[in-house]
């Protein structure tokens, strides 16, 4: 969808985050529409390949542009920030495609409950649901990868309905195994490494979210669609063995 001038730039704010990062803010809430705009603009910026910009990092509602101040081309006496702001405003104002085109849909196998997801029963109980019903609800939603952060390949996926609006745990676990699927605040994450974590653990996938040896080390990218598919412990073991 090509959009008209006002909605493309409306409400967009360019804000410095220190002397070598510029944040392009599209909103301040976790919202599918805002995130689509942010991801689309991140792609547009990638194509624009502005001099001095080293990283383009979309998050829930903004895009962070990391730059090397000394590598930004300057006009006259302007500062690198002023020059980059001018360049980004030009990209923002020129027509850019807010349509993501074809997004990938990945179906991620998950073994729910028991040792794979020790918090499943507690979450179900809080919500007054049976564990099978909770699993059904979790696998019924096609989520969107809002962003990758926290650790390599660690996705934030959403949005589930209000029944998944539960807080993180008051005391984080000291170790969450890689592959663990966890929920909080209507979002799901998949831990890509063995790390401490405070989310509610409901299952585990045999798939690696990150493997530095793969051609594409991260399984997921911002903007991907994700559906979780329930598997049995036997299937989990088989997939882990074959690595597929």
């Amino acid at each position, binding site marked *: 969808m090509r959009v008209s001038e006002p909605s493309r730039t409306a409400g967009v704010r360019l804000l410095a985050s220190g002397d070598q990062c510029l944040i392009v803010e599209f909103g301040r809430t976790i919202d599918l529409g805002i995130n689509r705009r942010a991801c689309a603009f991140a792609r547009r910026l990638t194509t624009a390949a502005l001099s001095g910009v080293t990283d383009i990092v979309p998050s829930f509602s*903004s895009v962070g542009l990391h730059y090397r101040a000394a590598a930004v081309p300057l006009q006259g006496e302007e500062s690198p920030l002023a020059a980059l702001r001018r360049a980004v405003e030009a990209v923002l104002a020129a027509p850019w495609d807010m349509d993501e085109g074809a997004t990938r849909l990945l179906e991620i196998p998950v073994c729910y409950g028991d040792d794979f997801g020790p918090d499943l029963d507690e979450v179900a109980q809080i919500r007054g649901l049976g564990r099978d019903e909770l699993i059904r609800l979790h696998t019924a939603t096609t989520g969107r990868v809002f962003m990758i952060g926290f650790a390599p390949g660690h996705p934030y996926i959403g949005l589930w309905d209000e029944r998944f609006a539960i807080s993180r745990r008051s005391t984080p676990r000291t170790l969450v195994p890689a592959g663990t699927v966890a929920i909080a605040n209507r979002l799901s994450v998949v831990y890509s490494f063995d790390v401490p974590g405070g989310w509610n653990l409901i299952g585990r996938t045999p798939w690696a979210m990150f493997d530095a040896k793969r051609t594409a080390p991260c399984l997921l990218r911002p903007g991907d669609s994700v559906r979780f598919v329930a598997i049995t412990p036997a299937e989990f073991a088989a997939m882990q063995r074959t690595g597929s």
Partner: protein
Amino acid sequence: MTVEVLKPGLFSSFQDLGRTGHQHLGISVSGAMDELSHRLANLVLGNDEREATLEITLMGPTLRFAVQATVAWCGADLSPAIDGTPVPRATPTPVPAGATLQFGKRLSGMRAYLAVRGGFALAPVMGSTSTYARAGFGGYEGRALRKGDVLGLKSRGLPGIASVSPGTAAAVQRLHDELSGLTIRVLPGREWEQFGAGAQQTLLSHPYRIAAQSDRMGYRLEGQALERSTTDDVLSEAVCFGTMQVPPDGQPIVLMAERQTTGGYPKIVQVASVDLPRLAQRAPGESLRFVLIAMEKAQALLLARERVLRTLIPAV
């Protein structure tokens, strides 16, 4: 063409200018904590500044060179010596085949950067030879050095450099002098306004001590708690080298080289990039003072330093 690690030191890891271009996938930039010293160590040897150097923390390693090489170091003075003869800072120094380079007593700073003429032989991962220890890749097998590791050198027989010119030596010394001091210049962070005048004043008028649990990922600071005047959630977004986050306990954390790519704690200030090398040379137990500067000033200082560094790049 190898160097054997007889003792690894406290935490010695290969670093370069960082693994940029992959932060949207959650991959940390990593890279040298003190980028200035890393660059200087390479430049005085005539290396490209992107060559990996060995970042050496507090207690240095003992390395035996199987072949002749030329080395230089910058940053913290950890008393390096070749077969007992001290090696001066920022000075190309030949290491005879079979000789041992040993680090000793810490005289200043926190991190030394050791470069070898021609570079260390390391396989880049995602375009960088920086060690990303938490993810276990990059540098030498994705980790800090261990006893018995054997490091490769890229090339031998490069013409040695007799010495650096007096002009270069003076410029290097002036840049090195910028590493000392406990005052760190900062810019308002993304949530600066949310902290209110009270917390802003507190941060700028009290010392903050670097806690023992500080590492390449972040410096935890201890001091007067910083309270935000709102309880609004902050959405996770891109964070930077030098972002100062304030978790609910009010004790700030400054994100360093091996930081995560995004963060959801309120960001009170951002360390001016020009002072990141100085911060990286401060050790746990030292107390910092923060002073606010303007954006234009921060960027002008960066550009001025860059101009000096460019004069040091050897003519091709």
